[in-house]
């Protein structure tokens, strides 16, 4: 049973998509699992033949339970968990900037042996032999460790980092597509949220005129495909505001708050087929507006074509929901557990606005913060919302 999220402890098998004897390829979906986040399709990281299914449909089993045996090519009958590093990201492709040795002068073949070419994908998680030994000795789950070595391999340093930090961010790459599954996932997550999270709500009306004027000017100089949406400004403002009030970002787990350095903003996205998911744009604070725009487009497209990676579903650290033009004035959003905050934006409306003793028509947006009272208090929440407001008044600096 792969771990598909930091807070996932168990999963219930809904359906086997394979049976013993089936030939499977890396990437094939082998089963569907119900989790608190939704129904997740589990893909195989191995190519081979299904030897035995060990878990029955309807059975709920803890994470890391062996679910099936797959015999890989050229291998005797050996037990191999279907997703050995469930969460273990297939070693993320190393930076394509993998160093080409500088050409000597005069140009000549370099006498040094090239490092093995980084391979973006491999049949199995790359773990250096020494790291593997330590992982086993420490009883760690390799799937919770992100490799930084050659070819994304897990190294001793990665293991040590994992041992010293309590890592919330387990990840997985599997695909979630099923609509009914999503409906059920929403049901479970929202019910859990309302059951467990003591929400507090704060709202702020934000003057959007400067931001929108700036955006219009900016977009007028851009080709259509490169134009920015105002929600990109909102996302960025939320990410930057988090720097001032970090309690809004992270998770509530085991009776305490676990912060996150990076802001992975979950973007609530409604699906054409119904339902709602909130996949993450990673590290919004570290991205330029253009990059956020690009990531948003990509994410929405993929969300709507069921092309999301499960890490995008499992690791937002805060969620933003923006109702958009066809929405209503304001929204009182529900936190997505185990996150601790959600920011909702209504549609942009024009309304009478008094400033400096003058009344005029302004375009405004109603921002609402849903906060987890276990992790933060209203005072901090207010600071956060004010910060968002303030950031929106200097859009050129976002």
């Amino acid at each position, binding site marked *: 049973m792969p771990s598909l999220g930091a807070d996932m402890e168990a999963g219930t098998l809904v359906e086997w998509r394979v049976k013993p004897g089936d030939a499977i390829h890396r990437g094939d979906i082998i089963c569907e699992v119900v989790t608190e986040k939704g129904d997740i399709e589990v893909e195989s990281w191995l190519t081979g033949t299904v030897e035995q299914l060990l878990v029955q449909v309807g059975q709920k089993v803890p994470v890391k339970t062996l679910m099936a045996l797959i015999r890989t090519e050229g291998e005797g009958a050996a037990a191999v968990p279907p997703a050995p590093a469930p969460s273990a990201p297939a*070693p*993320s492709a*190393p*930076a394509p*900037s*993998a*160093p080409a*040795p*500088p050409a*000597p002068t*005069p140009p*000549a*073949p*370099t*006498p*040094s*042996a090239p*490092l*093995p070419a980084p391979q973006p994908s491999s049949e199995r998680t790359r773990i*250096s*032999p*020494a*790291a*593997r*030994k330590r992982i086993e000795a420490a009883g760690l789950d390799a799937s919770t460790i992100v*490799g*930084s*070595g*050659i*070819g*994304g*391999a897990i*190294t*001793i*340093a990665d293991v040590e980092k994992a041992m010293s930090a309590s890592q919330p961010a387990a990840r997985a790459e599997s695909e979630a597509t099923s609509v009914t599954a999503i409906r059920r996932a929403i049901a479970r997550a929202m019910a859990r949220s309302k059951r467990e999270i003591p929400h507090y709500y704060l709202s702020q009306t934000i003057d959007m005129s400067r931001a929108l004027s700036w955006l219009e000017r900016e977009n007028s100089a851009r080709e259509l495909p490169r134009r920015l949406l105002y929600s990109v400004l909102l996302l960025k403002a939320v990410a930057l505001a988090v720097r001032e009030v970090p309690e809004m970002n992270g998770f509530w787990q085991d009776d305490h708050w676990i912060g996150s350095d990076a802001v992975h903003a979950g973007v609530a996205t409604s699906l054409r087929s119904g339902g709602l998911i909130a996949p993450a744009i990673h590290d919004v604070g570290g991205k330029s507006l253009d990059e956020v725009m690009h990531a948003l487009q990509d994410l929405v497209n993929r969300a709507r074509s069921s092309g999301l990676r499960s890490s995008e579903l499992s690791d937002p650290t805060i969620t933003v929901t923006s109702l958009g033009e066809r929405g209503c004035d304001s929204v009182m959003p529900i936190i997505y557990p185990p996150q601790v905050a959600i920011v909702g934006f209504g549609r942009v409306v024009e309304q009478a606005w008094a400033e400096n003793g003058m009344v005029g028509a302004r375009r405004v947006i109603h921002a609402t913060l849903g906060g987890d009272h276990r992790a933060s208090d209203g005072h901090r929440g207010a600071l956060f919302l004010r910060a968002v407001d303030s950031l929106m008044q200097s859009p050129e600096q976002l």
Partner: protein
Amino acid sequence: MTAIAAAVPPAAMPGVVKTTYRDALRAAHRDALRRDDRVFLMGEDVGRYGGCYAVSLGLLEEFGPERVRDTPLSELAFVGAGIGAAAAGMRPIVEVMTVNFSLLALDQIVNSAATLLHMSGGQCAVPLVIRMATGAGRQVAAQHSHSLEVWYAHVPGIRVVAPATIEDARGMLWTALQDPDPVVMFEHVMLYNLEGEIAETAGATDLDHAAVRREGSDISIVTYGGCLPKSMRAAETLAADGISAEVIDLRTLRPLDDETILKSVAKTHRAVIVDEGWRSCGLSAEIAARIAESALYELDAPVVRVCTVEVPIPYPRHLEEAALPQAASIADAARRLVNHHG
């Protein structure tokens, strides 16, 4: 404790003299010729000429033409004669001018020196030392620049050593002469002028162990012979980048001192093997295989090799330099291994 230690007068330091690799080798020859009258030196131009690399300069005058014998250009015959003389009880030192020419004597070394003891059921030992220069770097082109140490290191029955320091140039010969079996000694041409200090009392050094020439914790650079100084320079560079490199001088290429190599790898978890020989089927391949066989679970990164580009060594300086391992390429390889860009 420190106070007490400081109160103890320092032990008298033995005298230290400045010397060169070449002079240290000569001193070793002189020492051996004086100590054991079974020892004699023969080879091309070792006598009147003083040795192609001037190692034996002056020895003819001191020991006479019987014990410092100039040979005709007949590598097969005089190496074979050295083997026969050793089998018959002498302790010959045979200088083959360079490894390139030793190929003409390969039959005698491989088919006789290496086999006689085993083939005769232990009756016919061959206590012989064959010395030869090896390596590139002097712009003498393809036929004079080989590093074929591995050809000899491949063969059971012979011991292969490569002094890379002045101490070993001074100390390996006597120990090699005490070895009851044939020893092939490789002297890298770029080392002869190496200058340094050595204890006046310096003598024999062992032939059984590799040496840690520099201690480090991040990466092991395993090398020998002419690549040792380059590797030491690379380690200096790496230190400036915050990478602590350990440098292992193999010293003896057969039998390899696995223990020292593996111990270092167990400490650093990374290994770069530097060999002026070609990579394919080379010594570096052997060492990498041994690390994989015995220290796989200590490795935190793939083993990397820095070897000579697989070409005959060209004459022009820039091409020759590009072909050979250099301090910079060694440091680059080490840096890439330590600072991997996952």
